[in-house]
């Protein structure tokens, strides 16, 4: 990755200050933390740490933080406070998650990169329905538990979250299901096909498959979980909703077009989609019946999600499960000040991109770090755990 830090110092006399800047470890996966050290500066010396990254699309992102050296002439960004800049306080990974496009950049940029474990190999699987997806098993003989990863409504194939999961021992298949034109089906054929492909793959344990969905992918994840379980080992839904017609014609997209007048705009002319599906309908035929779920479900929502009514949906789902008596399967992680795009940690926060996603940067970044850890633990416990995953106690999360 093209990320580096540099120190900016004020030379004060003839003798050069030979400071030392180091990052430990110097190479890491995208969800691994590092420690930045500055050494050998005069005690109390003021430095600015600056991070610059050039994305694959050529845009540059930067962040900076001001620090003061201690009496030994050292600064440790994992222990010391930033006293100004892109973030404040003790933030070991602040220089990453607070990255913003450099001044003068095109408005509405979104951070895009592919971060792969050195051993991750991408295979494009093309079945009879011409699936467009990316499958990357972990290195080793296997077989491994599998995961079907459904990204949101962006339509682009994103490999990096799947690659991160592979580094945690999970064979993930990231499916781009929105390239299909036939969006009127409740569960696109491609999602069902991808599930079967995963289940039958020689390197995947067909009896240990989970699903993970973000945003629009949540709807399809919940649909599959309600109809497939107990076959599905567990499900993770991030920033999504359970609202959609359960049968018949039209899917979520049709519902959206019917309620177009509920879309609003921010002061900066960013689209706020949030109100589209509100209020949460009480008609059960418009919602996935989560009362039928038999596998553990982890819901992750941001309370400042301006794109989707994920917080309200999660509350409604909880009530439905309480009424059905299967709410012990539910873990709801609700994060204050957090927006829609809850991504793997240390990714820069994008509050808007023509569409208002919501969230304030420090809270959103903390939510990303916390939720990712909990998602990985949840998946590993349910996919690698003992014979009865339904008995897993998640109360300590």
């Amino acid at each position, binding site marked *: 990755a093209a990320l580096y830090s540099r120190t900016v110092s004020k030379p004060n006399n003839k003798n050069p200050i030979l400071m030392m800047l180091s990052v430990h470890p110097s190479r890491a996966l995208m969800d691994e933390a590092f*420690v930045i050290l500055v050494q050998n500066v005069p005690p109390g010396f003021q430095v600015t740490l600056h991070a610059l990254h050039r994305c694959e699309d050529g845009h540059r992102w930067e962040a900076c933080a001001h620090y003061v050296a201690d009496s030994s002439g*050292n600064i440790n960004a994992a222990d010391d406070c930033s006293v100004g800049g892109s973030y404040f306080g003790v933030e070991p990974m602040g220089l990453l998650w607070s990255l913003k496009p450099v001044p003068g950049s095109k408005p509405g940029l979104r951070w895009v990169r592919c971060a792969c474990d050195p051993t991750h190999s991408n295979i494009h699987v093309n079945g009879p329905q011409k699936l467009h997806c990316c499958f990357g098993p972990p290195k080793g003989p*296997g077989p491994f538990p599998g995961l079907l990863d459904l990204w949101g409504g962006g339509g682009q194939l994103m490999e990096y979250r799947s690659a991160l999961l592979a580094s945690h021992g999970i064979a993930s298949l990231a499916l781009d299901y929105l390239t299909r034109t036939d969006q009127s089906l409740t569960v696109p054929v491609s999602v069902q096909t991808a599930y079967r492909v995963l289940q039958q793959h020689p390197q995947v344990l067909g009896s240990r498959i989970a699903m993970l969905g973000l945003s629009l992918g949540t709807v399809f994840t919940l649909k599959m979980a309600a109809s497939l379980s107990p076959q599905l080992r567990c499900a993770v839904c991030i920033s999504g909703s359970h609202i959609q017609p359960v049968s018949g014609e039209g899917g979520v997209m049709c519902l959206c077009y019917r309620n177009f007048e509920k879309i609003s705009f921010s002061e900066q002319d960013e689209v706020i989609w949030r109100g589209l599906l509100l209020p949460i309908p009480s008609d059960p035929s418009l919602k996935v019946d989560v009362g039928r779920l038999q596998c553990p479900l982890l819901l992750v929502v941001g309370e400042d999600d301006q794109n989707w009514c994920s917080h309200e949906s999660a509350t409604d789902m909880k009530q439905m499960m309480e009424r059905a008596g299967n709410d012990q399967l539910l873990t709801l992680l609700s994060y204050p000040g957090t927006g829609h795009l809850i991504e793997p940690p240390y990714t820069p926060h994008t509050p808007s991109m023509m569409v208002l996603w919501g969230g304030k940067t420090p809270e959103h970044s903390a939510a990303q770090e916390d939720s990712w850890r909990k998602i990985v633990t949840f998946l590993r416990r349910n996919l690698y755990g003992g014979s009865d995953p339904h008995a897993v106690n998640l109360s300590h999360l």
Partner: protein
Amino acid sequence: MSQAVPPLLSVHPSRALVDEKFSVLVENLPPGCPVTIRSLYQSEDKDFWEAYGHYVSNHQGTVSVSEDISLGGTYTGKEAMGLLWSMRPIPGSRKGLRLRKKDTCAPMLVTISVYSGHEDVRDQAPLASALVERWYMAPGVQRIEITEKGVRGTLFLPPGPGPFPAMLDLWGGGGGLQEYRAALLACRGFISLALEYFNTNDAKPKGLDMKCFETAFEIIRSHPQAVPDRVGIIGLSYGTLMTLSLAAECPTIKPSCIVCIGNAHSKFLEEKVLKFHKEIPDRKYNKIHMMEDAVVKRDMGLAVLEVEHPKVKVGNIDCPMLLINGTDDQNWPTVEVASDIIKMMREAGKESLVTRLDYPDAGHLIEPPFSPHFRAANFMLHGTKKKVMVLWGGKTKPHADAQEDSWKKILSFLQLHLYGAPSLKAKI
């Protein structure tokens, strides 16, 4: 019907510099399960090297190499990095192999696997594996080949604008160009030039050709990112003879500090010393002899030390000096040489410049940490194209400890004298 879930093997970090530690963790085993964790590496010469430890999982089905005790294998005890430093060629390999990386730009790719049981695992399929990268170059380090003004070498620049202090890196009597230590020094903030001061193809080593070294020193000093008055020298084996000579006898080269590993200060090229071994009385020393099927030069060295002969005038050295040796060095009596150097420095009133590190049971080739140890290895005698098996000495575990400890001490010595840092305590 559900299949068995495999154990989960993870290495953190999976990519690191060769002097950085990692932790190997196996999870999801049955409790109390005997397993073997094995590392496998194919060298650039296509030989396979391996190491392994025998473990038993705890009640949670976990084995942690950093925390648990290996009960057998190529290493025993609590050894986080045993899977690297205890590596040796697999059975059936060629004899006398030595593991050194030629291409410093590409990482070493080591496969770590876990197998069931403690019996011979080589024919078994592993339960799980992970691929680990070990790098000699950190991101942003630049490698530049130098062939100018009669100097051949490789220059490594740390990332960033600088300026940086610098090091001249001199290897030993094998000749040729070994870059890996210079690359590592650049990762740690020093501009480093690995100098090829003689080639194995040369009929005679350039040896004390001062001009070559002066030019190399000047190339470093005049580099736009170097601090010209903060340049040190590090030498190993024959390279220590060069290092001491440059510091003591070359008026234009005034290093800020020097590091000597596997000390030698006898002027080999002087005719008297070269012919000396023929004149040693048989009754006292074995001259150059064989032990464990390999050549031992240590005794000849002891005999040389006893008589009056040309030595580097180390008393003229004015800079701090770090002397690093192993007490089981079979190639040269380096510990006795260090004592002689200190005696000469004392006579010149400069003993306070010397820091001495003697490592018990370590051999001659004290290399960067976690490199495998080899007690004997093939060595190309310069000018003859003849390979002999040379006994370097050392016992594996003490030698590995010496490599790990000395590297830390070398870096802190260089930071003190080249960065001018009074105390660098990295709070990691």
